[in-house]
């Protein structure tokens, strides 16, 4: 257990050591685009867009690096349900280079480019039900395991605590500090008197996003997958908040939506305000989803593009390439630092907005009264 914790600490150190992370990333990226470089040496241009998108988008195998002609990648299980209703499960290595396996192959172009499609008898391409463990899913699992390990190991140290136990040091101390700041900074003030009920969910959301963001910044396998920069992941998170808000919403909250306190003509013949409020139900989680997705995606894209400067300028001569490489490294270091901040900030913002939405749905007349009284007292 001790060993595992040490490894985890090392990994987290990696995340806060941008220079190292940067070099590693540069190496990984360099190898990732080597193939393209070779191609460009043969007269083709480096396709930066392709490089960036191939990292950002999901894939069926986890590409680590390429050495010369050899591609080193981790094959991942493909789980698909064919048209006939059968489930197929096989390694993604079977689909290399457009190979077809059991009637499935990865589409090169068209609407399903990059996805597994099924070739039917009449030559049509159909998208099967695809539950494959893709790179994002694998990364997600790794990150979840890391998160569970960290939190549960720390929780184990707390289990037999007495009320007069001393404060913990090490990882537990760090985690406790973060938990405390999230509790005191976001959850208690935003959710209000009911905060105990929602604190575990909000903390889980915070740490889930935070760990995934940080792991996304570490460029070495098994970290480095673009998890929170994938819209499906953020959609699930936003849905979780949506359910937390609406399932536990009070009567007053629903009344505010369908019969808000506005002039009657705004709601009786044409329910303008109720309609707006109702749409607001969905735009709130939607904004959560898009915000997290776009921020992390953009961060990954910028770092990759900055790294690609090195290879894009490779043909312009040693002087230009050297200068631009230096610029690229400096900018990448800066961006990695910025992304560290963004990783925390986005987790923080997501949790805070979730807490605010939940707190708004918890509001009742009494609470309002109470909070007003408290405000009055504090003002006095």
């Amino acid at each position, binding site marked *: 257990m001790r060993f595992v914790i040490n490894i985890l600490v090392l990994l987290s150190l990696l995340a806060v050591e941008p220079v190292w992370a940067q070099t590693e990333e540069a190496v990984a990226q360099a190898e990732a685009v080597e193939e393209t470089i070779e191609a460009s040496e043969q007269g083709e241009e480096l396709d930066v867009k392709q490089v960036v998108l191939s990292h950002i988008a999901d894939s069926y195998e986890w590409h680590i690096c390429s050495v010369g002609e050899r591609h080193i990648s981790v094959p991942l299980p493909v789980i698909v349900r064919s048209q006939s209703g059968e489930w197929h499960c096989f390694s993604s290595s079977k689909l290399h280079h457009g190979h077809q396996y059991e009637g499935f192959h990865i589409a090169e172009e068209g609407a399903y480019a*990059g996805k597994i499609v099924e070739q039917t008898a009449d030559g049509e391409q159909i998208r099967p039900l695809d*539950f494959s463990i893709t790179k994002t899913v694998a990364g997600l699992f790794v990150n*979840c395991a890391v*998160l569970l390990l960290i939190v549960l190991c720390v929780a184990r140290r*707390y289990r037999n*605590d007495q009320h007069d136990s001393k404060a913990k040091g090490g990882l537990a101390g760090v985690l406790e500090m973060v938990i405390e700041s999230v509790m005191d900074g976001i959850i208690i003030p935003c959710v209000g008197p009911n905060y105990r009920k929602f604190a575990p969910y909000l903390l889980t959301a915070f740490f889930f996003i935070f760990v995934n963001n940080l792991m996304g910044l570490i460029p070495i396998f098994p970290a480095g997958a673009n998890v929170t920069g994938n819209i499906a992941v953020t959609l699930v998170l936003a849905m979780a908040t949506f359910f937390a808000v609406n399932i536990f919403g009070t009567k007053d909250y629903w009344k505010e939506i369908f019969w808000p306190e506005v002039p009657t003509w705004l709601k009786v013949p044409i329910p303008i305000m109720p309609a707006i409020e109702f749409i607001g139900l969905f735009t709130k989680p939607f904004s959560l989803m898009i915000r997290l997705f776009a921020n992390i995606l953009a961060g990954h894209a910028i770092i990759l593009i900055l790294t690609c400067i090195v290879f894009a300028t490779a043909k312009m001569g040693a002087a230009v390439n050297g200068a631009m490489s230096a610029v690229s490294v400096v900018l990448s270091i800066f961006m990695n630092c910025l992304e560290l901040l963004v990783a925390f900030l986005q987790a923080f913002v997501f949790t805070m907005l979730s807490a605010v939405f939940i707190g708004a749905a918890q509001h009742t007349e009494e609470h309002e009264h109470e909070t007003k009284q408290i405000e009055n007292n504090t003002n006095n």
Partner: protein
Amino acid sequence: MGLLQPELGLLFWTSLAFGVVLFLLCKFGFPVILRSVEERRKFIDSSIDAAHEAEVRLERVTLDSEAIVEKAEAERQMILRSAGEERDRIVTEARAKAEEEARRIVAEAREQATEEREQILRDGRQQVAALAVALSEKLLREELRDRQSQTKLADRLLDEINSQTTNTEA
């Protein structure tokens, strides 16, 4: 745009993973830590309260003892002062009494002296009178040894008396 289309498989796996993580952390993770931290916070708060109370109490005790010392000091001062006053008063009183006594004794002595002097004077006068009478008796006896002289004296006395009476009648 492929990036903006959530994949069904990914949605499923994410929901599953997040669900499992949420369940595990909500059951075994955060509540344990939160409870412990909360308890520790309460303990620290109560300890601080207790420390404050002890401090206040100590301060009060210190104040009390200081007050007691001060009071004792004041009492000592007062006792010393009153003792001095008493002493002065006694001395003054004694002096006054002694003076009065002395004055009284002097006065008494003077009175006695006066009395004695008068006594002496009176005694002297009596003795002078008795001496005069005795002398005149002796003189008379000497003078009136014969009959003739006695008659002469008687005559002369009678004359004197007569003249005296005439004088008074005149």
